[in-house]
């Protein structure tokens, strides 16, 4: 099996910051807007290099979304930055009417997504954002897994014309995907070939899926690992092909099992190739305060949980 090397823990939000800084130099139409979280979103470098293209909106997310929509009129490519909770649930109607329905080329960039936001607790830990965003017609929804992939995604969405939700996180996690990768929106990444089960993962759970595959390999179970970074549009072909090969699927995500990647995969399989599936996700619950590692363990969002679900789904194979 392929061995992935962690080149050193880094936060995905820093991948966004580096990508945005690069865009600042390469694309004069890129503008950045922030609602009083410049440091948290790692937008400092862009702000320092291009103060005329950086807009501090203040703690007013609804206004930020509307301003971003308006800025596209005249050719700018706005990147908004705040926490995932304030990027989605707080401003759902603004995104719906002024961006999605109006077809505006805005990139909604959301950090501190999911439970790994940690100690701030459930008020800030959104586990529903993928569902909210994927339900909007025309919205592209991306959840990256490490620093390098987040940087590549940031560059890729600037080149794509249309509304995008880009979700990333706060903690430092394994950085293992290639440094200067090409990011293809809507294209699954095969990380591990396998024959007994398909582990389909997004975001911080991708590294956990690779760790799980190692454990499973030692137990004689050959796991295929697929990284779905684009929840919508979903690479259905890759999912169906893998399910046909292995006959069992485990999805893994830092999100509620309602509305997330798991449901999108289940819907795809139900329509095209019904396959037993287990879900590594939160179970319709809010989070709580704690360290990211404690929370991932308590809410069953780690390699051990994936291993357990794989064993369960393999027993369900006909």
């Amino acid at each position, binding site marked *: 099996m392929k061995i992935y090397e962690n080149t050193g823990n880094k936060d995905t939000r820093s991948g966004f910051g580096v990508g945005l800084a690069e865009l600042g130099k390469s694309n004069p139409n890129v503008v950045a807007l922030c609602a009083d979280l410049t440091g948290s979103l790692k937008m400092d470098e862009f702000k320092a290099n291009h103060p005329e293209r950086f807009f501090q909106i203040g703690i007013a997310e609804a*206004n930020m979304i509307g*301003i971003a929509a*308006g*800025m596209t*009129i*005249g050719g700018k490519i*706005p990147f908004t930055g705040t926490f995932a909770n304030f990027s989605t649930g707080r401003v759902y109607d603004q995104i719906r*009417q002024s961006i999605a*329905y109006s077809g505006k080329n805005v990139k909604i960039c959301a950090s501190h997504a999911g439970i790994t936001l940690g100690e701030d607790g459930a008020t800030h830990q959104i586990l529903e954002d993928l569902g909210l965003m994927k339900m909007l017609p025309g919205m592209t929804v991306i959840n990256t897994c490490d620093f390098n992939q987040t940087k590549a995604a940031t560059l890729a969405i600037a080149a794509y014309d249309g509304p995008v939700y880009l979700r990333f996180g706060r903690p430092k996690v394994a950085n293992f995907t290639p440094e200067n990768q090409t990011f293809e929106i809507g294209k699954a990444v095969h990380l591990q070939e396998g024959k007994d089960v398909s582990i389909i993962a997004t975001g911080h759970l991708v590294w956990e899926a690779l760790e799980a595959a190692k454990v499973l390999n030692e137990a004689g179970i050959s796991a295929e690992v697929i990284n779905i970074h684009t929840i919508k549009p979903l690479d259905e072909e890759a999912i169906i092909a893998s399910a046909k090969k292995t006959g069992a699927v485990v999805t893994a995500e830092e999100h509620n099992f309602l509305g997330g990647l798991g449901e999108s995969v289940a819907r795809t399989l139900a329509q095209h190739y019904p396959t037993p599936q287990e879900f590594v996700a939160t179970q319709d619950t809010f989070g709580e305060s704690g360290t990211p590692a404690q929370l991932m363990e308590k809410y069953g969002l780690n390699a051990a949980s994936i291993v357990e679900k794989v064993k369960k789904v393999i027993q369900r194979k006909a």
Partner: protein
Amino acid sequence: MSTTQQLEDFVSQVRRDILRQVHQVNSGHPGGSLGCAEFFSVLFKEVLQTKAQFNMDGKDEDVFFLSNGHISPVYYSVLARTGYFPVEELNTFRKIDSRLQGHPTTHEGLPGIRIASGSLGQGMSVAIGAALTKKLNKDSHLVYTLHGDGEMQEGQNWEAIMYAGAKGVDNLIATVDYNKQQIDGSTDDVLPLGNLKDKFVAFGWDVLEVEEGNNVEAIKNALTEAKTITGNQKPIVILLHTVMGNGVDFMMHTHAWHGKAPNDEQLASGLAQNPETLGDY
């Protein structure tokens, strides 16, 4: 430039278009539409500097956003009558497969519309965004908006008003349709707006007040004056005192016709009060 008589004739036709649109589908919002017929007519015929061909980007031309999207009948009539799309298309208002949706949208590609509106309170932010882009593009043209007064109850407006004042967005001319009515009654009954002028001033705006908001000359003067004070580090708002339902006697001075269509008899009465001047669609 049009004469006052020409503008008033234009307004008369716009009123007919409004009444006929909402009557035909027995739905839509005639009250606010009629109250702003003069404003739209003056703005589009006399004030906005636009290119012959509609372009979404609106570069090197003035742009306009309607925030209170429910008064789409007046918007559609004036867009059609100033050449954005064929006047006959007003026949499709609110019908299936139409570009003239109940509330304005870009989704069906109707020329003249740059943002969807209808869910209230969002237009000011969008306009600020367009104004900021104009500054980045070194485009000296202006951004105009229209808002309902009841719409000022939406909190997002105040985020936007605070931002525009604090950051000196001075290429923006907003207008508030100050008719003091909303769906459930008068604004004073529903949620008093207080002193709107003082509120805007407190947020750092220049405020112009037009007592005769249904007088085409008064509107023209106010918009002209507003233009002369742009570029002074302050956004500008015009508080336009209008009469809801203006020009149709039984619809005036009441909230009752906010979102109600006239029946056949009422339509006949409304049309009789407003002569056909440019030809019905």
